[in-house]
């Protein structure tokens, strides 16, 4: 009976998925499994500049990580950036989404305008904020000096305590609208009945938000956090363009450090090791998050 049932599997619910997935699997295997395997292999090797070839070094790269302050610095910068940006963009994104979620005339235009920030390549966004935050000619610097926040002696991007904030500003500017879009989509698909009921029950708008909107939006927020989080953890473009990781190492992220080891110093093995650490960390974080938030696809 089971054999016959299995034969029947293809019938409806169980028609073979393989042909549909084959192109996807083929592309992902070539473009992601292969690099993964290659990186694992590389992490036990190192490029020898004088021999012009890659040589096995055993566990050297992995053990070098332990004593590499720059590596630990970059982990802490990455985590700071990652968590700060997630919180800021979720909160700000939600606030703006609530603000703009209206059928009134004019709001459509505002929503469309907001999406403009998404089409600017991050590399150009970085340059844009580099100009805006320039210590002498930047408009932001000028404004902040006028209102007394800056005193003219601490360039935003060249001061250890503010450089990361300066980079974050570009990220917030570029990606908060992305969160707004996602949250707006979520708000749009909420049922109206609970709101009507809450209105009749006399709930305040904050209570309505706390008790109805937030729980209903839970999944949307979780998905947004997951998608944005993955990209935030690999952040590269802004630092690459704006600060080169400086001043000192205050804006050096894991991705940037891996990039530099790989391309500037031709330490392919060490670069690969750092990349793998980055991959492992985000895999753990993402899976924990999926587990806790119960996101199902």
């Amino acid at each position, binding site marked *: 009976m089971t054999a016959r049932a299995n034969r029947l599997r293809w019938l409806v619910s169980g028609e073979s998925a393989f042909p549909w997935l084959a192109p996807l699997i083929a592309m992902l295997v070539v473009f992601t499994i292969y690099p993964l395997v290659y990186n694992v292999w590389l992490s036990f090797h190192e490029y020898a500049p004088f021999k012009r070839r890659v040589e096995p070094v055993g566990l050297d790269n992995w053990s070098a990580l332990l004593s590499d302050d720059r590596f630990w610095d970059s982990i802490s910068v990455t985590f700071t950036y990652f968590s700060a940006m997630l919180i800021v963009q979720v909160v700000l994104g939600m606030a703006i989404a609530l603000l703009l979620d209206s059928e009134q005339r004019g709001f459509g235009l505002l929503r469309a305008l907001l999406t403009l920030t998404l089409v600017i390549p991050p590399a150009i966004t970085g340059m844009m904020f580099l100009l805006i935050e320039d210590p002498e000619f930047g408009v932001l610097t000028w404004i902040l000096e006028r209102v007394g926040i800056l005193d003219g002696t601490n360039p935003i991007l060249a001061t250890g305590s503010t450089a990361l904030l300066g980079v974050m500003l570009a990220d917030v500017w570029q990606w908060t609208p992305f969160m707004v879009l996602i949250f707006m989509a979520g708000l749009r698909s909420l049922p109206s009945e609970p709101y009507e009921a809450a209105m009749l029950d006399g709930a305040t708008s904050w209570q309505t938000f706390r008790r109805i909107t937030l729980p209903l939006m839970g999944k949307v927020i979780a998905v947004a956090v997951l998608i944005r989080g993955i990209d935030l953890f690999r952040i590269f473009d802004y630092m690459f363009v704006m600060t080169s990781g400086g001043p000192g190492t205050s804006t050096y992220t894991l991705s940037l450090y891996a990039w530099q080891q790989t391309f*500037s110093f031709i330490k392919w093995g060490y670069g690969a090791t750092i990349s793998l650490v980055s991959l492992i960390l985000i895999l753990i974080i993402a899976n924990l998050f999926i587990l806790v938030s119960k996101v199902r696809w």
Partner: protein
Amino acid sequence: MRDSDRKRYLAKVVDDYVRRRISRRRFLSTSAQLGLGAAALGSGMGRPFWGYSPAHADDMLQPSKDVLDWVADVSKPFRGTTLKLATESTPPSNAINSQLKPYFEEASGMKIEIEVLPLEQVLQKLTLDIASQLGTYDLYYIDQSWAAFTSRDVFDPREQLADKPDLAMPEWRVEDFLPALVDGIARYEDRLVGVPYDIPIFIMMYRKDIWEDMGFEAPTTLEQYYEQAKAITDEMGPDMYGATGQMKSGHYSLECDWTAWLWGHGGSIFNSDGKFSGNDERGIEAMEYWTRLYQTMPPGVTGWTWDGQGQSIAQGVAASMMSWGEFFPYFDDPSATKVSGLMEAVRCPAPKRPLRTVSDTGYGEIPGVGHQGGSSLAVSRNSKNPDPAWIFMQWATCHDTQVLITALGGGTGPTRTSVYDDPRIIANNRVGPGTTRHLGVVRETIANDMGSEPDLPEWAELSNDTIPVRLGKYFAGDYGSAKEAMDDIAQAADKVVSG
């Protein structure tokens, strides 16, 4: 021909060319006859786009027929070859890429593809190509600090001359290149890593008007320079600062500034044992000087590469800089800057102490206040087309092409002695965009003040990361003292060098 007629005819010629009705060569020569070099095309349309004064007749800026004939002749076996080169966006490369390349392509039947990138990315592309031995580029643009790493992967031009007499360009003489440049840029151990191709070098550029207002003469010593800069900042700040810099943390430019002060105080990066010596007494003295001078600069310097530095001069925020001479022609362009005609170039102030000699330093480091950031052009050993690449390289570095580059590229520093003396170059010795009036200073600096970074394979890492990241920390206030910072650099640098 009346001016309006000329414009109308020109418009037709452009149109014909765009529609491929006439050849590029015919187009160029026709435009030249109309009194407009290829480069001057824009000026025919409405407003003077190309700001060069007609001090030289435009047909003077046509490549020499002899050279092109030679190219056509030796290139016969190689027609159809494609050559690739990655280069920083520098005046010579841009002049070749956008103006001169077509002449070569037409004569040789080869195709030249030039990839223009910021300096760090050129390094990344080049090292990846060498490391992979794949020969994705036929020619390398080699910053002098990479010479050690690349030396074994390029042809020594002297060998090429000897091995391929039939491909040698007549009158292409290695001896014509400024000897100081050959030593400083191209030589690694006993080999030549290509030939000098361009030479940005530190010269002193200052606002003559301000200096005169203050009653100063051009600074002759570093100490005097500091005092003048401080006086100007004290007097005119924060609207005007006496000096400026390129001091962005983690950036190569920060290291460049550092070496100038280090060498200027008789210090050196390495001692003769190959150990980092920036933390010795002279090194600390240099750091103290630099820290003082930094106080006279706009507070933004720690966020700037040469771009911000140059802009601070060009927009009238700072009064002087000891930096790349390449900027000078730009300062004289009234459409882009507020200081056209106000700048003056002189040799760098004299060092505080006698310079160390090469025998006191390590890895071929040559101390000198005039930090040079020159590059050489070389044929890659990994290239699949070394012979055509050699032809192109000779053409790109020959006297005639170098003159055109210097004229078109806006008064960049030539690497050949003969180019400085060419009438086409001398003709541009006047105030205005693309001026060559600073080239005399450049030439003297090369001969007398030039400082060259050491040649060792790890230098790329040291100069792009180890040193500027920590110097950046120093200026961000992360170290207690200059000594602490330099000791930290010493420790890190020695570790990098020892592997």
